[in-house]
Protein backbone atom coordinates (compact mmCIF):
# COMPACT_ATOMS: atom_id res chain seq x y z
CA UNK A 1 0.00 0.00 0.00
CA UNK A 2 2.83 2.37 0.94
CA UNK A 3 4.51 1.65 -2.42
CA UNK A 4 1.31 2.56 -4.31
CA UNK A 5 1.04 5.75 -2.27
CA UNK A 6 4.67 6.64 -3.07
CA UNK A 7 4.18 5.94 -6.79
CA UNK A 8 1.10 8.19 -6.81
CA UNK A 9 2.97 10.94 -4.94
CA UNK A 10 5.87 10.63 -7.41
CA UNK A 11 3.60 11.24 -10.41
CA UNK A 12 1.84 14.12 -8.63
CA UNK A 13 5.28 15.59 -7.94
CA UNK A 14 6.11 15.46 -11.64
CA UNK A 15 2.82 17.17 -12.54
CA UNK A 16 3.40 19.86 -9.89
CA UNK A 17 6.95 20.40 -11.15
CA UNK A 18 5.60 21.90 -14.39
CA UNK A 19 3.07 24.23 -12.69
CA UNK A 20 3.68 27.85 -11.63
CA UNK A 21 7.06 28.27 -13.35
CA UNK A 22 9.86 30.25 -11.72
CA UNK A 23 10.91 33.55 -13.29
CA UNK A 24 13.04 32.74 -16.38
CA UNK A 25 16.03 34.90 -15.38
CA UNK A 26 16.28 32.92 -12.11
CA UNK A 27 15.56 29.56 -13.76
CA UNK A 28 18.31 30.10 -16.34
CA UNK A 29 20.86 30.56 -13.55
CA UNK A 30 19.59 27.45 -11.76
CA UNK A 31 19.79 25.34 -14.94
CA UNK A 32 23.36 26.50 -15.68
CA UNK A 33 24.40 25.76 -12.08
CA UNK A 34 22.85 22.28 -12.26
CA UNK A 35 24.54 21.59 -15.62
CA UNK A 36 27.82 22.43 -13.92
CA UNK A 37 27.08 20.32 -10.81
CA UNK A 38 25.46 17.32 -12.45
CA UNK A 39 26.96 17.05 -15.97
CA UNK A 40 30.29 18.87 -16.09
CA UNK A 41 31.12 17.64 -12.58
CA UNK A 42 30.51 14.03 -13.65
CA UNK A 43 32.56 14.07 -16.87
CA UNK A 44 35.79 13.11 -15.10
CA UNK A 45 34.43 9.95 -13.48
CA UNK A 46 32.49 8.98 -16.65
CA UNK A 47 35.66 9.40 -18.75
CA UNK A 48 37.83 7.45 -16.30
CA UNK A 49 35.41 4.53 -15.90
CA UNK A 50 34.52 4.36 -19.60
CA UNK A 51 38.12 4.29 -20.76
CA UNK A 52 39.19 1.50 -18.42
CA UNK A 53 36.04 -0.61 -18.67
CA UNK A 54 36.34 -0.39 -22.47
CA UNK A 55 39.87 -1.70 -22.08
CA UNK A 56 38.77 -4.53 -19.76
CA UNK A 57 35.96 -5.59 -22.14
CA UNK A 58 38.51 -5.79 -24.95
CA UNK A 59 41.06 -7.79 -22.94
CA UNK A 60 38.45 -10.26 -21.68
CA UNK A 61 36.97 -10.75 -25.15
CA UNK A 62 40.42 -11.27 -26.64
CA UNK A 63 41.43 -13.75 -23.93
CA UNK A 64 38.25 -15.78 -24.41
CA UNK A 65 38.71 -16.14 -28.15
CA UNK A 66 40.98 -19.12 -28.44
CA UNK A 67 39.46 -20.77 -31.49
CA UNK A 68 41.59 -19.84 -34.53
CA UNK A 69 38.44 -19.99 -36.72
CA UNK A 70 36.99 -16.96 -34.95
CA UNK A 71 38.30 -13.81 -36.61
CA UNK A 72 40.36 -11.42 -34.43
CA UNK A 73 38.31 -8.44 -35.55
CA UNK A 74 35.53 -9.82 -33.30
CA UNK A 75 37.32 -8.14 -30.38
CA UNK A 76 36.56 -4.67 -31.82
CA UNK A 77 33.04 -5.75 -32.76
CA UNK A 78 32.27 -7.07 -29.25
CA UNK A 79 33.75 -4.00 -27.57
CA UNK A 80 31.69 -1.66 -29.77
CA UNK A 81 28.45 -3.56 -29.15
CA UNK A 82 29.03 -3.86 -25.38
CA UNK A 83 29.96 -0.22 -24.95
CA UNK A 84 27.25 1.29 -27.17
CA UNK A 85 24.37 -0.99 -26.24
CA UNK A 86 24.83 -1.54 -22.52
CA UNK A 87 27.93 -0.24 -20.85
CA UNK A 88 27.67 3.46 -21.74
CA UNK A 89 23.92 4.01 -21.27
CA UNK A 90 23.04 1.53 -18.50
CA UNK A 91 26.14 0.77 -16.47
CA UNK A 92 27.18 4.43 -16.40
CA UNK A 93 23.64 5.45 -15.38
CA UNK A 94 23.79 3.12 -12.38
CA UNK A 95 27.10 4.68 -11.38
CA UNK A 96 25.51 8.11 -11.85
CA UNK A 97 22.59 7.02 -9.61
CA UNK A 98 25.22 6.83 -6.89
CA UNK A 99 27.04 10.04 -7.72
CA UNK A 100 24.40 12.42 -9.08
CA UNK A 101 21.44 10.74 -7.34
CA UNK A 102 22.86 10.92 -3.83
CA UNK A 103 23.95 14.52 -4.47
CA UNK A 104 20.41 15.47 -5.49
CA UNK A 105 18.75 13.63 -2.58
CA UNK A 106 21.11 14.96 0.05
CA UNK A 107 21.01 18.56 -1.21
CA UNK A 108 17.19 18.66 -1.42
CA UNK A 109 16.84 16.63 1.81
CA UNK A 110 19.09 19.06 3.68
CA UNK A 111 16.97 21.93 2.38
CA UNK A 112 13.90 20.13 3.75
CA UNK A 113 15.52 19.54 7.17
CA UNK A 114 16.72 23.14 7.49
CA UNK A 115 13.31 24.57 6.46
CA UNK A 116 14.72 26.11 3.26
CA UNK A 117 11.90 24.45 1.28
CA UNK A 118 9.34 25.92 3.72
CA UNK A 119 11.00 29.31 3.18
CA UNK A 120 10.45 28.97 -0.60
CA UNK A 121 6.81 27.94 -0.10
CA UNK A 122 6.11 30.83 2.28
CA UNK A 123 7.45 33.22 -0.34
CA UNK A 124 4.90 31.80 -2.79
CA UNK A 125 7.49 29.97 -4.90
CA UNK A 126 6.65 26.56 -6.36
CA UNK A 127 9.51 24.73 -4.62
CA UNK A 128 9.22 21.66 -6.88
CA UNK A 129 9.57 23.80 -9.98
CA UNK A 130 12.42 25.73 -8.39
CA UNK A 131 14.34 22.65 -7.22
CA UNK A 132 13.48 19.71 -9.49
CA UNK A 133 12.74 21.26 -12.88
CA UNK A 134 16.26 22.75 -13.44
CA UNK A 135 17.84 19.40 -12.51
CA UNK A 136 15.59 17.61 -15.00
CA UNK A 137 16.48 20.08 -17.76
CA UNK A 138 20.19 19.94 -16.86
CA UNK A 139 20.16 16.14 -17.11
CA UNK A 140 18.74 16.34 -20.62
CA UNK A 141 22.40 17.02 -21.51
CA UNK A 142 23.30 13.66 -19.97
CA UNK A 143 23.36 11.89 -23.39
CA UNK A 144 26.23 14.25 -24.27
CA UNK A 145 28.21 12.78 -21.34
CA UNK A 146 27.22 9.27 -22.44
CA UNK A 147 28.43 10.00 -26.00
CA UNK A 148 31.82 10.91 -24.51
CA UNK A 149 31.65 7.68 -22.49
CA UNK A 150 30.99 5.65 -25.66
CA UNK A 151 33.89 7.28 -27.48
CA UNK A 152 36.31 6.79 -24.58
CA UNK A 153 35.16 3.21 -23.97
CA UNK A 154 35.97 2.30 -27.56
CA UNK A 155 39.21 4.29 -27.34
CA UNK A 156 40.12 2.43 -24.14
CA UNK A 157 39.52 -0.85 -25.93
CA UNK A 158 41.71 0.31 -28.78
CA UNK A 159 44.51 1.28 -26.38
CA UNK A 160 44.29 -2.10 -24.61
CA UNK A 161 44.43 -3.90 -27.95
CA UNK A 162 47.37 -2.01 -29.32
CA UNK A 163 49.46 -1.71 -26.16
CA UNK A 164 48.53 -5.15 -24.80
CA UNK A 165 49.18 -6.86 -28.10
CA UNK A 166 45.84 -8.70 -28.13
CA UNK A 167 44.99 -7.83 -31.71
CA UNK A 168 46.17 -5.42 -34.37
CA UNK A 169 44.81 -1.88 -34.72
CA UNK A 170 43.57 -2.74 -38.22
CA UNK A 171 41.59 -5.74 -36.92
CA UNK A 172 40.14 -3.67 -34.09
CA UNK A 173 39.01 -0.91 -36.47
CA UNK A 174 37.62 -3.49 -38.88
CA UNK A 175 35.62 -4.95 -35.96
CA UNK A 176 34.29 -1.52 -35.07
CA UNK A 177 33.03 -1.09 -38.65
CA UNK A 178 31.59 -4.58 -39.08
CA UNK A 179 27.78 -4.82 -39.26
CA UNK A 180 27.39 -1.35 -37.79
CA UNK A 181 23.71 -0.50 -37.24
CA UNK A 182 23.00 3.18 -36.67
CA UNK A 183 19.75 2.32 -34.86
CA UNK A 184 21.79 0.86 -32.01
CA UNK A 185 23.13 4.33 -31.28
CA UNK A 186 19.60 5.81 -31.51
CA UNK A 187 18.31 3.09 -29.15
CA UNK A 188 21.11 3.84 -26.76
CA UNK A 189 20.38 7.58 -26.71
CA UNK A 190 16.61 7.04 -26.27
CA UNK A 191 17.43 4.86 -23.23
CA UNK A 192 19.78 7.54 -21.95
CA UNK A 193 17.08 10.24 -22.12
CA UNK A 194 14.70 8.03 -20.13
CA UNK A 195 17.42 7.23 -17.58
CA UNK A 196 18.28 10.94 -17.31
CA UNK A 197 14.67 11.70 -16.35
CA UNK A 198 14.75 8.89 -13.77
CA UNK A 199 18.12 10.13 -12.44
CA UNK A 200 16.68 13.61 -11.88
CA UNK A 201 13.25 12.78 -10.48
CA UNK A 202 13.59 9.71 -8.22
CA UNK A 203 16.41 11.15 -6.06
CA UNK A 204 14.52 14.49 -5.97
CA UNK A 205 11.40 12.66 -4.78
CA UNK A 206 13.29 10.96 -1.94
CA UNK A 207 14.92 14.23 -0.89
CA UNK A 208 11.80 16.38 -1.17
CA UNK A 209 9.45 14.13 0.79
CA UNK A 210 11.89 13.00 3.48
CA UNK A 211 11.09 13.58 7.13
CA UNK A 212 13.47 13.78 10.05
CA UNK A 213 17.03 15.00 10.53
CA UNK A 214 20.57 14.46 9.27
CA UNK A 215 20.44 10.68 9.77
CA UNK A 216 17.30 10.45 7.62
CA UNK A 217 19.02 12.48 4.86
CA UNK A 218 21.66 9.71 4.71
CA UNK A 219 19.00 7.01 4.69
CA UNK A 220 17.04 8.85 1.97
CA UNK A 221 20.19 9.02 -0.20
CA UNK A 222 20.70 5.26 0.12
CA UNK A 223 17.04 4.52 -0.62
CA UNK A 224 17.13 6.89 -3.59
CA UNK A 225 20.17 5.09 -5.03
CA UNK A 226 18.56 1.66 -4.63
CA UNK A 227 15.26 2.72 -6.24
CA UNK A 228 16.94 4.65 -9.05
CA UNK A 229 19.09 1.61 -9.88
CA UNK A 230 16.08 -0.74 -9.73
CA UNK A 231 13.97 1.50 -11.99
CA UNK A 232 16.86 1.93 -14.48
CA UNK A 233 17.35 -1.84 -14.73
CA UNK A 234 13.61 -2.49 -15.14
CA UNK A 235 13.24 0.25 -17.76
CA UNK A 236 16.34 -1.05 -19.53
CA UNK A 237 14.68 -4.45 -19.86
CA UNK A 238 11.36 -2.97 -21.05
CA UNK A 239 12.94 -0.54 -23.53
CA UNK A 240 15.25 -3.21 -24.94
CA UNK A 241 12.28 -5.54 -25.41
CA UNK A 242 10.30 -2.78 -27.13
CA UNK A 243 13.03 -1.45 -29.42
CA UNK A 244 15.25 -4.45 -30.16
CA UNK A 245 13.03 -7.39 -29.29
Amino acid sequence: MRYLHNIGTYFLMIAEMFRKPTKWSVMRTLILKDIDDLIIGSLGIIAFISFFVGGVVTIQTALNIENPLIPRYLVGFATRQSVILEFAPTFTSIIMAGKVGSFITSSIGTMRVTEQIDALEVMGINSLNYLVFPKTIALMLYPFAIAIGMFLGILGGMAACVFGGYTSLEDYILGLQTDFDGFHVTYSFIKTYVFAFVLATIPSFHGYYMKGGALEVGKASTTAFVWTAVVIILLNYILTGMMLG
Partner: protein
Amino acid sequence: MIVVENLHKSFGEAEILKGISTSFEKGKTNLIIGQSGSGKTVFLKCLLGLFTYEEGTISYDGKIFSQLTEGQKRDLRAEIGMVFQGSALFDSMTIVENVMFPLRMFTKMSKSEMEDRADFVLKRVNLPDAHHKMPSEASGGMQKRVAIARAIVNNPKYLFCDEPNSGLDPKTAIVIDNLIQEITDEYQIITVINSHDMNSVMEIGEKIVFLKNGLKAWEGSNKTIFKTDNEIVTDFVYSSNLFKKVRKMYLEENE
Protein backbone atom coordinates in the same frame (compact mmCIF):
# COMPACT_ATOMS: atom_id res chain seq x y z
CA MET B 1 -5.17 43.31 10.66
CA ILE B 2 -5.03 39.50 10.69
CA VAL B 3 -8.23 37.98 12.07
CA VAL B 4 -8.49 34.30 12.97
CA GLU B 5 -11.91 32.83 13.69
CA ASN B 6 -12.68 29.41 15.12
CA LEU B 7 -9.61 27.67 13.66
CA HIS B 8 -9.63 23.87 13.79
CA LYS B 9 -6.75 21.68 12.61
CA SER B 10 -6.32 17.92 13.00
CA PHE B 11 -3.71 15.36 11.97
CA GLY B 12 -5.65 12.12 11.56
CA GLU B 13 -7.45 11.47 14.84
CA ALA B 14 -5.42 14.04 16.78
CA GLU B 15 -7.08 17.46 16.99
CA ILE B 16 -4.27 19.99 17.41
CA LEU B 17 -6.16 23.30 17.18
CA LYS B 18 -9.63 23.23 18.74
CA GLY B 19 -11.26 26.49 17.67
CA ILE B 20 -8.86 29.40 18.09
CA SER B 21 -10.09 32.95 17.54
CA THR B 22 -7.88 36.01 17.84
CA SER B 23 -6.58 39.00 15.94
CA PHE B 24 -3.19 40.61 15.30
CA GLU B 25 -2.88 44.35 14.84
CA LYS B 26 -0.66 46.54 12.66
CA GLY B 27 2.43 48.08 14.24
CA LYS B 28 2.37 45.69 17.21
CA THR B 29 4.55 42.72 18.10
CA ASN B 30 2.10 39.89 18.69
CA LEU B 31 3.42 36.88 20.58
CA ILE B 32 1.99 33.37 20.53
CA ILE B 33 3.21 31.55 23.63
CA GLY B 34 2.57 28.18 25.20
CA GLN B 35 4.23 24.95 26.22
CA SER B 36 5.77 22.56 23.71
CA GLY B 37 2.94 20.63 22.07
CA SER B 38 0.36 23.36 22.69
CA GLY B 39 -0.15 23.92 18.95
CA LYS B 40 1.91 27.10 18.47
CA THR B 41 3.86 25.90 15.42
CA VAL B 42 0.77 24.37 13.79
CA PHE B 43 -1.09 27.64 14.38
CA LEU B 44 1.75 29.63 12.81
CA LYS B 45 1.94 27.27 9.82
CA CYS B 46 -1.84 27.63 9.33
CA LEU B 47 -1.40 31.43 9.37
CA LEU B 48 1.33 31.09 6.73
CA GLY B 49 -0.80 28.83 4.55
CA LEU B 50 1.68 25.96 4.89
CA PHE B 51 -1.06 23.82 6.50
CA THR B 52 -4.67 23.61 5.39
CA TYR B 53 -7.28 23.57 8.14
CA GLU B 54 -10.66 21.85 8.44
CA GLU B 55 -12.71 24.66 9.90
CA GLY B 56 -12.51 28.39 10.56
CA THR B 57 -11.18 31.39 8.67
CA ILE B 58 -8.01 33.45 8.54
CA SER B 59 -8.30 36.87 6.93
CA TYR B 60 -5.49 39.23 5.99
CA ASP B 61 -6.82 42.81 5.93
CA GLY B 62 -10.27 41.51 5.04
CA LYS B 63 -9.10 38.94 2.46
CA ILE B 64 -10.10 35.43 3.57
CA PHE B 65 -7.11 33.21 2.72
CA SER B 66 -9.06 30.05 1.89
CA GLN B 67 -11.24 31.95 -0.62
CA LEU B 68 -8.32 33.40 -2.57
CA THR B 69 -7.36 32.10 -6.00
CA GLU B 70 -3.86 30.63 -6.47
CA GLY B 71 -2.71 33.90 -8.06
CA GLN B 72 -4.11 35.97 -5.19
CA LYS B 73 -2.45 33.64 -2.66
CA ARG B 74 0.85 34.11 -4.49
CA ASP B 75 0.43 37.90 -4.37
CA LEU B 76 -0.40 37.74 -0.66
CA ARG B 77 2.64 35.55 0.04
CA ALA B 78 4.85 38.14 -1.62
CA GLU B 79 3.69 40.49 1.17
CA ILE B 80 4.74 38.03 3.89
CA GLY B 81 8.19 37.92 5.48
CA MET B 82 9.17 34.92 7.58
CA VAL B 83 12.01 34.32 10.01
CA PHE B 84 12.40 30.59 10.61
CA GLN B 85 13.63 28.98 13.83
CA GLY B 86 16.84 27.80 12.17
CA SER B 87 17.03 30.93 9.94
CA ALA B 88 16.51 28.79 6.77
CA LEU B 89 19.10 30.73 4.80
CA PHE B 90 19.93 29.24 1.40
CA ASP B 91 23.34 27.75 2.03
CA SER B 92 24.38 27.81 -1.63
CA MET B 93 24.09 31.63 -1.68
CA THR B 94 26.11 34.36 0.01
CA ILE B 95 24.45 36.56 2.63
CA VAL B 96 23.75 39.37 0.17
CA GLU B 97 22.35 36.89 -2.39
CA ASN B 98 20.05 35.52 0.32
CA VAL B 99 18.80 39.00 1.09
CA MET B 100 18.34 39.84 -2.60
CA PHE B 101 16.48 36.58 -3.29
CA PRO B 102 12.89 37.88 -2.75
CA LEU B 103 13.73 40.90 -4.93
CA ARG B 104 15.02 38.66 -7.73
CA MET B 105 11.89 36.53 -7.54
CA PHE B 106 9.19 39.19 -7.20
CA THR B 107 10.43 42.52 -8.53
CA LYS B 108 11.72 43.93 -11.79
CA MET B 109 14.54 45.82 -10.06
CA SER B 110 17.89 46.12 -11.82
CA LYS B 111 20.91 44.43 -10.22
CA SER B 112 22.24 47.71 -8.85
CA GLU B 113 18.83 48.61 -7.37
CA MET B 114 18.66 45.20 -5.69
CA GLU B 115 22.18 45.62 -4.33
CA ASP B 116 21.32 49.06 -2.96
CA ARG B 117 18.19 47.74 -1.26
CA ALA B 118 20.05 44.72 0.19
CA ASP B 119 22.80 47.04 1.38
CA PHE B 120 20.20 49.23 3.10
CA VAL B 121 18.47 46.38 4.97
CA LEU B 122 21.77 44.73 5.95
CA LYS B 123 22.83 48.05 7.48
CA ARG B 124 19.41 48.25 9.18
CA VAL B 125 20.03 44.91 10.92
CA ASN B 126 23.57 46.02 11.84
CA LEU B 127 25.39 43.79 9.37
CA PRO B 128 27.14 46.31 7.13
CA ASP B 129 30.19 44.15 6.28
CA ALA B 130 28.89 40.60 5.94
CA HIS B 131 27.67 40.73 2.32
CA HIS B 132 29.96 38.14 0.78
CA LYS B 133 30.13 35.64 3.61
CA MET B 134 28.40 32.29 3.24
CA PRO B 135 25.69 31.52 5.84
CA SER B 136 27.90 28.73 7.26
CA GLU B 137 30.55 31.36 8.08
CA ALA B 138 28.10 33.48 10.09
CA SER B 139 27.28 33.09 13.80
CA GLY B 140 23.77 32.16 15.00
CA GLY B 141 22.98 35.79 15.83
CA MET B 142 24.23 36.97 12.43
CA GLN B 143 22.18 34.30 10.67
CA LYS B 144 19.05 35.49 12.51
CA ARG B 145 19.76 39.07 11.47
CA VAL B 146 20.25 38.01 7.86
CA ALA B 147 16.94 36.11 8.05
CA ILE B 148 15.25 39.29 9.35
CA ALA B 149 16.90 41.31 6.56
CA ARG B 150 15.65 38.81 3.96
CA ALA B 151 12.16 38.90 5.50
CA ILE B 152 11.86 42.70 5.36
CA VAL B 153 13.73 43.41 2.10
CA ASN B 154 10.57 43.39 -0.02
CA ASN B 155 8.66 45.69 2.37
CA PRO B 156 6.28 43.03 3.71
CA LYS B 157 2.97 43.88 5.35
CA TYR B 158 3.17 40.81 7.59
CA LEU B 159 6.21 39.46 9.44
CA PHE B 160 6.15 36.01 11.05
CA CYS B 161 8.92 34.75 13.32
CA ASP B 162 9.19 31.19 14.62
CA GLU B 163 11.25 31.08 17.82
CA PRO B 164 13.59 33.88 16.68
CA ASN B 165 15.67 33.59 19.88
CA SER B 166 16.21 29.86 20.00
CA GLY B 167 19.87 28.93 20.31
CA LEU B 168 21.01 32.50 21.03
CA ASP B 169 22.73 33.84 24.13
CA PRO B 170 20.54 36.16 26.29
CA LYS B 171 22.27 39.35 25.13
CA THR B 172 21.95 38.53 21.42
CA ALA B 173 18.37 37.38 22.02
CA ILE B 174 17.48 40.83 23.40
CA VAL B 175 19.19 42.50 20.43
CA ILE B 176 17.06 40.38 18.04
CA ASP B 177 13.86 41.10 20.04
CA ASN B 178 14.50 44.82 20.01
CA LEU B 179 15.34 44.75 16.31
CA ILE B 180 12.05 43.01 15.49
CA GLN B 181 10.11 45.50 17.62
CA GLU B 182 11.86 48.51 16.06
CA ILE B 183 11.21 47.21 12.53
CA THR B 184 7.54 46.51 13.36
CA ASP B 185 7.09 50.03 14.65
CA GLU B 186 9.16 51.70 11.93
CA TYR B 187 7.45 50.01 8.97
CA GLN B 188 4.04 49.59 10.65
CA ILE B 189 3.83 45.90 9.81
CA ILE B 190 1.87 43.15 11.54
CA THR B 191 4.38 40.97 13.37
CA VAL B 192 3.48 37.57 14.80
CA ILE B 193 6.14 35.81 16.87
CA ASN B 194 6.00 32.24 18.06
CA SER B 195 8.00 32.03 21.28
CA HIS B 196 8.44 30.41 24.63
CA ASP B 197 11.19 32.76 25.72
CA MET B 198 9.89 34.60 28.78
CA ASN B 199 12.36 37.45 28.27
CA SER B 200 10.72 38.12 24.89
CA VAL B 201 7.28 37.96 26.46
CA MET B 202 8.20 40.64 29.01
CA GLU B 203 10.30 42.71 26.62
CA ILE B 204 8.26 42.99 23.42
CA GLY B 205 4.88 41.28 24.03
CA GLU B 206 2.58 44.13 23.04
CA LYS B 207 -0.05 41.47 22.50
CA ILE B 208 0.23 37.95 23.86
CA VAL B 209 -1.90 34.94 22.93
CA PHE B 210 -1.41 31.99 25.28
CA LEU B 211 -2.23 28.56 23.84
CA LYS B 212 -2.81 25.40 25.84
CA ASN B 213 -3.88 22.05 24.40
CA GLY B 214 -4.95 23.64 21.12
CA LEU B 215 -7.13 26.29 22.76
CA LYS B 216 -6.59 29.96 23.50
CA ALA B 217 -6.24 29.99 27.28
CA TRP B 218 -5.50 33.70 27.71
CA GLU B 219 -4.96 36.90 25.75
CA GLY B 220 -3.35 40.14 26.95
CA SER B 221 -0.07 42.07 26.89
CA ASN B 222 3.24 42.25 28.76
CA LYS B 223 1.56 44.83 31.02
CA THR B 224 -1.48 42.75 31.90
CA ILE B 225 0.38 39.44 32.22
CA PHE B 226 1.81 40.63 35.56
CA LYS B 227 -1.66 41.20 36.96
CA THR B 228 -3.48 38.16 35.62
CA ASP B 229 -4.70 35.61 38.11
CA ASN B 230 -5.27 33.00 35.41
CA GLU B 231 -3.49 30.03 36.96
CA ILE B 232 -2.73 28.33 33.65
CA VAL B 233 -0.79 31.41 32.52
CA THR B 234 0.93 32.13 35.84
CA ASP B 235 2.01 28.47 36.17
CA PHE B 236 3.69 28.69 32.78
CA VAL B 237 5.07 32.23 32.75
CA TYR B 238 6.16 32.38 36.39
CA SER B 239 7.45 28.83 36.65
CA SER B 240 10.95 30.02 37.65
CA ASN B 241 11.68 31.52 41.07
CA LEU B 242 13.27 34.55 39.44
CA PHE B 243 10.11 35.44 37.51
CA LYS B 244 7.98 34.78 40.63
CA LYS B 245 10.10 37.35 42.50
CA VAL B 246 9.97 39.83 39.61
CA ARG B 247 6.19 39.55 39.50
CA LYS B 248 5.92 39.98 43.27
CA MET B 249 8.08 43.10 43.15
CA TYR B 250 6.10 44.51 40.21
CA LEU B 251 2.79 43.95 41.95
CA GLU B 252 4.09 45.49 45.21
CA GLU B 253 5.39 48.53 43.35
CA ASN B 254 2.13 49.03 41.50
CA GLU B 255 -0.25 48.46 44.41
